[in-house]
């Protein structure tokens, strides 16, 4: 039975293996026929190189490809936290115009509830 590896195109991290044919893929994915290759994804996030060799994905690749959902969620929270802190700092800057400070304060409250 044909087996297709669906990769995140940019990083070539394997998002899934499928025997569905043709494999349904998203715009940022590439389907590669891996029939006959011994691929076991249970060992962790995996990169399929252009020569069909396999290697473990780096944490950055796993994050960028979206396969590490927990890390992606943590990164979103980190980014939002940093943005909220930056807005708060700008809103408190006495060198900023009062109307801008008020706008930033309101924006921070609306966006982050802080």
């Amino acid at each position, binding site marked *: *039975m044909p*087996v297709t590896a*669906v990769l995140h195109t940019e990083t070539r991290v*394997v*998002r*899934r*293996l*499928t*025997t*569905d044919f043709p494999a*349904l*893929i*998203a715009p*940022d*994915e590439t389907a590669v026929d891996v029939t006959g290759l011994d691929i*076991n*994804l*249970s*060992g*962790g996030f*995996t990169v399929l190189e252009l020569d069909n060799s396999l290697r473990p994905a780096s944490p950055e690749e796993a994050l960028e490809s*979206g*396969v590490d*959902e927990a890390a*992606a*969620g943590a990164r*979103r*929270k980190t980014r*939002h936290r940093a943005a909220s802190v930056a807005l708060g700092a700008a809103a408190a800057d006495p060198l900023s115009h009062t109307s801008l400070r008020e706008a930033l304060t309101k924006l921070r409250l*609306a*966006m*982050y509830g802080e």
Partner: protein
Amino acid sequence: MGLSVKTGSFVTETATGSKAYTGLGFQPKVLLLWSVGGVTAGTFRTGAYTSVGFGTDSTHRAALGWSSQNGQNFSNCARTQGPNVLDLVQWDVTTHIRADLVSMDSDGFTLNYTTVNATAKIVHYLAIGGSDITSCTVLDWPCGVATGNKVVTGVGFQPDAVMHLSIGEPSSGSSLQADARLSFGMMEAGGGQWSNVIYSVDNSGTSDSQRHQQTGKCIQKLTTTPSVNMAAQFVSMDSDGFTVNFTSVTGVAERVFSLCLKGGSHSLGSFSAITSGGPAQDSPSLGLAPLTYLLSSFNSSGQASPIGSTRWSLGGSDGTSEETAWANDTDALGTSASDTLSKTDKAIVICSATPAVLGEADHSALGSDVFTLTWSTVPVTAHELLYWAIGAGAAPAARIPRWLPVMRTHDPRPLDAVA
């Protein structure tokens, strides 16, 4: 009677402790609960919860939950699973309402509320009992990590019908996680199968939610792409369980909770809700005389690929009572918009993101081979509905496999004009 069924609803308790529910008229062997956190039946409520749980006794049960907060600049979504029978998760990844199954009683069942909320929520149920159900249990098992067949054992008997639930969580037992995901599927020994799945991403600046429904798969899971990154189809019912063929895998052994039933007759299939010429609509030929049925829909026509927005309906009828619930989390919005609707006087409801009712149907009749819905609001666009019809006795030795296309009959005459 060989098979006893009852659909109904109740509201959750506001104090912890045991609560006995009576009035079923029989001792259930299987209990299915579902809730979208509705407070007033028939009224839309902002903020979306979904819980689906099933149990056969105090040690064989599972409940999964999904939620998404309304009106947030960054989506706030959560999911849960655990050894309970009702589990409404709060979007801040805490438990909202949780109850376990204590016992199946002579005239009902008893739940133990371990977490309650000051506002009581509507819970819908389907209870099944009778001598026709000879065995039933709930199994917690890991999905396949490689494509191909996976033999699942430990059921203790050869099931006739199996319902699957999953939130895509690899750890066994109780779990609360960010991101809202819920997979719901079924398969029966005659080959019928279907599944639908909803997924909302947590902490996203623009809401990121999707849904999918397939009639050729009994289990599936979505990822953010959006795409189906885990799926399985029915292969066989075996002496101690069942075999499914994993057609897509991620390598992560996520848990699947399966309600396994032996006895009664079961039919799984799908049909497209009428879009004009109502009010009556017959389901496809079931191959059995139904005593009750469940309906589910992802509120769309059939789609080859996942589509945007979480939208999901579950309902049913025992021929007398009707229960249905609907949940929504709209995709691609700067401010999240999530809503739910519970109804205790309709068998199924389909709604828009507005939110507004697009279509809703009453149970009309149980026939020798069909159940009939009467659409009080006829949807103007096609919507694919999935059904699980349950009848008495054993499944027929041979009948048309549910996965084959079936010519659906639709009699446009009013019901009272049909002889």
